[in-house]
């Protein structure tokens, strides 16, 4: 019996090693949620990343910034999420939303973002040195240091090194940036128009 147990344990361990080897360099596993594109309804995170090209809606605000707490902004942002999600789906792109709160106190920032519904990803803390703020205001996609603001960026998602062992994003570029309550509200009212996007291969789910 002990020998059988040991053999079984060895087989199981070997199977785990084998599966682990397969897992290295693979796409991150999807959750149990359906990978099907959302159609209609309020925005909810897809809990899946589709390889190909994706649009990302980024919101940057702060609990301590009066304009970021304008009563009409949450509704406008929800409209933007839904409309841009549908636009991305129609354009064969993946879609994600990122909420960034530049509060010093993380919990206060997260509470601020909760007013704006669901995001696929959130960041909070460190004021203007927040990692998301650094990326979308100071560094890779530089712009005005002002809140609230929203951006739409486009980027490629997948095996960016084409070697099967590096998964990430590349080629991120600004599609549109709207700064200040008035611009955001006006843009939402205008239906979130975007410059024409180039045709792409359909984004693929896992």
């Amino acid at each position: 019996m002990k020998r059988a147990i040991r053999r079984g344990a060895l087989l199981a361990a070997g199977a785990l090693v084998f599966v682990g080897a397969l897992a290295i360099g693979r796409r991150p596993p999807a959750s149990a949620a359906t990978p099907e594109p959302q159609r209609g309804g309020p925005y909810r995170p897809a809990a899946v990343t589709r390889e190909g090209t994706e649009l990302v809606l980024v919101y940057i605000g702060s609990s301590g910034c009066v304009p970021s707490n304008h009563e009409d902004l949450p509704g406008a942002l929800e409209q933007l999420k839904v409309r841009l999600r549908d636009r991305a789906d129609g354009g064969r792109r993946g879609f994600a939303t990122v909420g960034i709160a530049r509060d010093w106190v993380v919990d206060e920032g997260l509470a601020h973002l909760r007013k704006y519904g669901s995001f696929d990803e959130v960041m909070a803390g460190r004021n203007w040195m927040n990692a998301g703020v650094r990326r979308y205001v100071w560094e890779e996609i530089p712009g005005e240091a002002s809140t609230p603001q929203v951006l739409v960026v486009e980027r490629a998602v997948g095996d960016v090194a084409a070697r099967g062992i590096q998964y990430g994003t590349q080629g991120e570029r600004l599609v549109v940036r709207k700064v200040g309550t008035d611009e955001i509200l006006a843009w939402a009212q205008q239906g979130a128009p975007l410059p024409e996007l180039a045709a792409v291969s359909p984004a693929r789910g896992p």
Partner: protein
Amino acid sequence: MSLLRPAGLLFVALAAAGCERTAEAGEINHPTAENIPAEAGLADIIGAKSRAGGELQAFAERLAKARLVLTVGKLEGPPSTVFGAVEDVDVHMPGRFAVLDSRYNEVRVFDQNGTFIESFGRPGRGPTEFLAPEALESDGPDRFVVADRNAQVKVIERTPAGMQQRLTIPLQFTPEDLCVLGHDIVVQGPLPGGLLHLYSPDGRHQRTIGGGYQSTNALVRNQLSDGRAACSAKGQTIIAMLRYLPYVRGYGADGTLRWTSRLADFRTIKIEEGVEPDGQPYVLLGEGGGDYDQVEVLHALDDGLVIVQTARHTAQSGRERRDYAELHTYLLSAETGKGVYVGNTVPRVLDVAGNRIYTGSSEPFPQVRVYEIAPAGASS
């Protein structure tokens, strides 16, 4: 809420942002006497009823009647037609104009019909990249000068290999405006030694001229020395105006102050300086409301005239979230400083070439609007 320039111990609050403060004893109200020139020395005091006569008046009347002939920019469409923010326009050669887009950090070139020709620039800190472009000028058809609030001036030229950055001029200040005098580059920005900084075409600093706002408080000096500058080739005059004060000044390239004029109807914003109970100094602009003006445009025309535009801000325009309530236009002589009030119907001028005025608008979405001025002698 905007992130203002890091200011150490200093705290600057704008009433428009909704913050309220209590005035402390010992406050200083600006402008102080040292910043108010004597009336007797003024070249002109220009008000709504000013009538200069002659060429100045005739052109002012034509300018007020300019008609819209071209609109460039769409709400959606090909990327070249969708602007993020029209920061500046420069007519760099006959039949072409360049648009500086400060959101997409690029320069786009169009022909006189509004057809897109080319673009250059992208976001970043490298060659032919911009972080926060503020002003665009050209020095000939293939040489562009861009002031970037990243404390740089970049000179970009056309080469057989395309548009390439030829020169970076590092600055010790944040540039507010830019013009070209001859081939020299004039950059407006506050430094203790002066306001207008002249650089040779190869980027060497030649001299600093012009006085900014006078104050022993460095932040007050910096904040209130923001403004606009323009270069008039005729007479080699550099014209400057501080944002919140009603004085327009003309300097020679050697720094000589040639004239100072005052805009009679300019409403000065309330500017208060003080110290908090905890010892933190502060400067407040516009506390308590009230209408105020600030300079929006200084633009020199080829014939020695200068367009000055000031924006009137009111409580209503603030409530309605408009850029301003009214834009007042004046026309001055770069040589003498004498001027005339044009009116409040001329849109915000970014460049003038021949009989065309190039303007920028953000409502209902970013656009360039081109107007034509009727030729001299034409009936209205």
